[in-house]
Structure formats: C-alpha cells, structure tokens
C-alpha cells in the first residue's frame, strides 16, 4: 500500500556531484555531431575557420609522424614537459620546506608577508617579458614562469596543512618525549601530508597552464609554440591539435597525481580547503 502520491519536493541532495555518465556522454557526443554537421554542410562554417573533426584527427596523425616547426608533436610535448618538470620540481623543493618553516616558526610569517603580498597579485604571465630580458629565449625563462606559477600554492597549502595540526597531538608527542625533529617527521608531516599533496597538485596544474602562455611568447619548441605556429600559418587544425594535447596532458597529470595521492596517503584528507 503505497500512498502519498504527492510530489516529493525534497531533492536528492546527497547524490554525488559526479553524474551518471550517460548524460554527459550524450551532451558531448551531441556537440561533436554539431561540430561535424556545421563543417560538413557546405556554407555553414568555412573549413578555414573550423575544420571538421576528421581533419583534426588527420592533422593529429600528421603532426605525430612528421616534423612541424622543428619537431614532431611528441617532440614539442617532451620539450614542454621537461620545462614544466624543472619548474615544478624547484617550486616544490623550495615551497614545501618554506611552508613548513612558516607554519612551524610563526615569527617568520610577517617577514615574508610583504614579499608574498607584493607578488601575489602579479600574474605569472606578467613575468614573461622580464624573464625574457633576464634569460633570453631559454629553458630557464620557461621554467621560471612555471616556478612562479607553482610556488605560492606549495607554500600556502603546506603552511595551512602544518598549521592545522591539532596542538593536542603536539602536546601528546611532547609528553611521550618526542623532540622537535621527531614530532615534525612522525606527527606533523603525516597529518599535513594530504594538504601538502593537494598544494602540489594545484601547483603542478598552475605551472602547466602558465607554461603554455610562456611558450606562446618565447621559445622555439613546445606545445604553446606549436599552437602559436599554427596561428601564424593560419592552420586552425594545428591549433586544435595543440590545444587538445595540452588539455589532455594537463588532465593526465592531475589524474596520475590523484592516483599517487591515494596510493601514498590512504588516510583521510585534511579538512582545510585547498588554496589555488
């Protein structure tokens, strides 16, 4: 006997944010079909403005096999990834220890605040002209932009992660006779690790985004360079292949990092919100 046929206005708010995939897949498929139709029906969109999906796939194959503007697609991707890796490695290597220091030794915070506030609102990209002046069209220039984009997220999230460690834990460690070094390595860092890792993930993604911008302006190789060459040659399909590759690599980096995070840090993630 089921009554109360009245409409249930309560919404299933507890449903996970990730939706049933069919809807999204259908929406994306619809857009692809629309894209294809627009390019297939003559007179709607010129191929010069928007090539058909098949042209893009074909262009992808060509770029993967043949040299374009100095190297194949993979060569460009490898160049970008190398610069990115250099930049983010330095950012993590300096940013995480600095974040720990700032959280662990509070008087240091006001000392770095002026610099941090000064640089915080200057977009990484605004550093490109001066980086070019300093280091020319070199890997250092690109890596520096990556570093500038990645560094703050490392510092801030590490600091938040370490600062939020419950002082009761610290006192407990002290009463158990742990010194500063032991407390830091055995208590603080494991608790802060999820926040730190989240910071690293944001840093990696910020660095990747900024690198593309830097490569648009300077350099002779890289995915950003590839799309800027596509622009110069009026080849929209090249640009699209470049954009898709950049997006796919960016997404891949994040997926891999999420996996690694789950593997390395299976315990519950920190409660603080990550800061981008």
């Amino acid at each position: 006997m089921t009554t109360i046929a009245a409409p249930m206005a309560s919404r299933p708010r507890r449903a996970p944010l990730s939706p049933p995939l069919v809807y999204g897949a259908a929406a994306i498929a619809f857009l692809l079909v629309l894209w294809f139709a627009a390019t297939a029906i003559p007179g709607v969109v010129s191929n010069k403005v928007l090539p058909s999906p098949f042209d893009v796939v074909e262009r992808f194959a060509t770029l993967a096999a043949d040299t374009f503007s100095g190297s194949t697609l993979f060569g460009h991707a490898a160049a970008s990834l190398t610069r990115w890796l250099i930049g983010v490695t330095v950012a993590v290597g300096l940013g995480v220890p600095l974040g720990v220091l700032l959280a662990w030794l509070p008087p240091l915070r006001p000392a770095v605040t002026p610099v941090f506030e000064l640089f915080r609102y200057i977009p990484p990209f605004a550093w490109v002209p001066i980086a070019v002046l300093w280091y020319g069209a070199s890997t250092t220039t690109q890596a520096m932009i990556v570093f500038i984009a990645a560094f703050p997220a490392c510092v801030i999230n590490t600091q938040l992660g370490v600062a939020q460690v419950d002082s009761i834990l610290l006192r407990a460690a002290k009463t158990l006779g742990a010194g500063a070094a032991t407390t830091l390595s055995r208590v603080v860092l494991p608790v802060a690790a999820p926040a730190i890792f989240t910071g690293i993930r944001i840093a990696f993604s910020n660095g990747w985004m900024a690198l593309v911008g830097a490569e648009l302006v300077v350099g002779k190789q890289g995915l950003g360079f590839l799309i800027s060459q596509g622009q110069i040659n009026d080849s929209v399909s090249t640009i699209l292949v470049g954009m898709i590759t950049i997006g796919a690599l960016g997404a891949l980096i994040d997926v891999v990092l999420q996996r690694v995070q789950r593997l390395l840090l299976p315990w519950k993630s920190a409660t603080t919100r990550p800061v981008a």
Partner: protein
Amino acid sequence: MATRVRSFWRTPPGKIAWLAICLGSIVVLLGAWWYLTRPGGGISPLFLPPPDEVLDAFVRLLSRPYLGSTLGQHIAASLEVVMTGWLAAGLVGLPLGIAMGWWRKARWVAFPIFQVLRPVPPLAWIPLAIVWLGIGESARVFVVFIAAIVPWVMNSMQAVYSIDALLVSAALTLGANDRQILTRVVCRTALPTLVAGARISLGNAWTTLVAAELLAATSGLGYIALNASRTLEIGILLVAMAIIGVLGALFSVIMQLVTRIVAPWSRANAEGA
C-alpha cells in the same frame, strides 16, 4: 635560556611585533635592492635597475604618453576588455552555474562539458582567437570570456549545490514553492559564495588579459610590458608589472567589499575571512 629562545620561535607574534617584523623586512628588502644595484653593487641595471630609476620610470609614464597613449588610456584599455569579458561571462555563467547547482539534470548534462574544457588553459585559446577574430579587442574579450566563464560556472554551481539541504526542507515545510526556495533561500544563502566565485573569475580574467595583451594588442598594460622588454626599459617594465599587480589586488579588495555590502549577514564577514 634555550627554552625561552625556542618559545619565541614557536609563538605567533603579537600585533605590534608582527608590524615591526613586516616593516623590518620591507626595509631590509629595499636596502638590499638599493645596495646591490648601486654602481659597482654586483647587479647590472640591465638586469634590475635601482629603486630610484624605477621611480623615475613611473613619473615618466605618468607625465608623458608611452606608445601613443597616456598611462590612464592604457589602464582604461585593459580595464575595458577585462570588464567586458568578465561581465559577459557572468551573464552566461552565473545563471548556468545556478541552474546546474539546482537541477541535477542540468548538472548531469553540462558538468562533463566543462570538465572536458577545464584542463585547456585559457591562454591556449589565444591563437585560436587571433585566427578567428584578428588581433583586435574582440579577440581579447573572447579570451577573457573563456578564462572567466569556467570559474563563474563552477563556483556558482558549487555554491548552490552545497546549500544546507535542511534549509530547503525548512522552507518546504513553511509552504515555499520551488521558485520561492530558489530565489528566497538558495540564491540568497549562496550569495557570499557566488560573489567569491565572481572574484575568482575576475582574477582569472585579469591574469589572462595580461597574457592576451602580450600577444594581441596595441595598447594596455601587457602591451607596455612587452614593449618595454623589447626596448630594454626595465624600469617601465617593472612599473607596468606593479600596476598590474596593484589592480589585481584592488579587484580582490573591491569584491570583498561587495560581499560585505550585499551579504552583511555573512559569517565570513564577521570573521573577516
């Protein structure tokens, strides 16, 4: 003694100590800058000019047109593009994000599209914009729009989606219909978060605009920076960077003020967060 030293390092400084350390740090930085860039100081003025030269550059920018426009005109050009792109993105993104947060079918359909688009950096759209629209203002507006719309949509969606379900239940039992709940309860409660999304969006728009101006512009702050770099006028370049930074900070402050005005009840305001 040892413990006293330790406890100094382990305690957050008070307000006055904080200010003193801040000021000290600024003085040290300026001093180091001046000392290292003085004649024979080890750093070439071509790498980093001394502070007074940067100040001169600022005065020069203020008093004389640079690259055909006054500083005010350059700033106005940048602001115009960023505001147009950001507002246009908001006009689309805010309602779309709210709809996606409220109607799960809308979310199911549209969210994956944004998830696919999101990893492509807004900057990567610049070449496409140039091919499609040329190096005029419309290309820059387009790129700013792309950069701004994703955070508009994502944050608005999150803001609406994460409204406490109990508030909706309470409104239902008090007799509100779906439309009243959406406008009177959900959107109003989400307002601070919606404004926060707008702020993030404006930050992204600004960042991206500067990039677009390096590539496709004939005026604007990014354009000044790139030209100064080509002509080795580092002082001007640094001033342009500083103005970009100051305006970015200003946007952030203004948006925080907006939150305070439109949502005086917000707990975040009370806590100064």
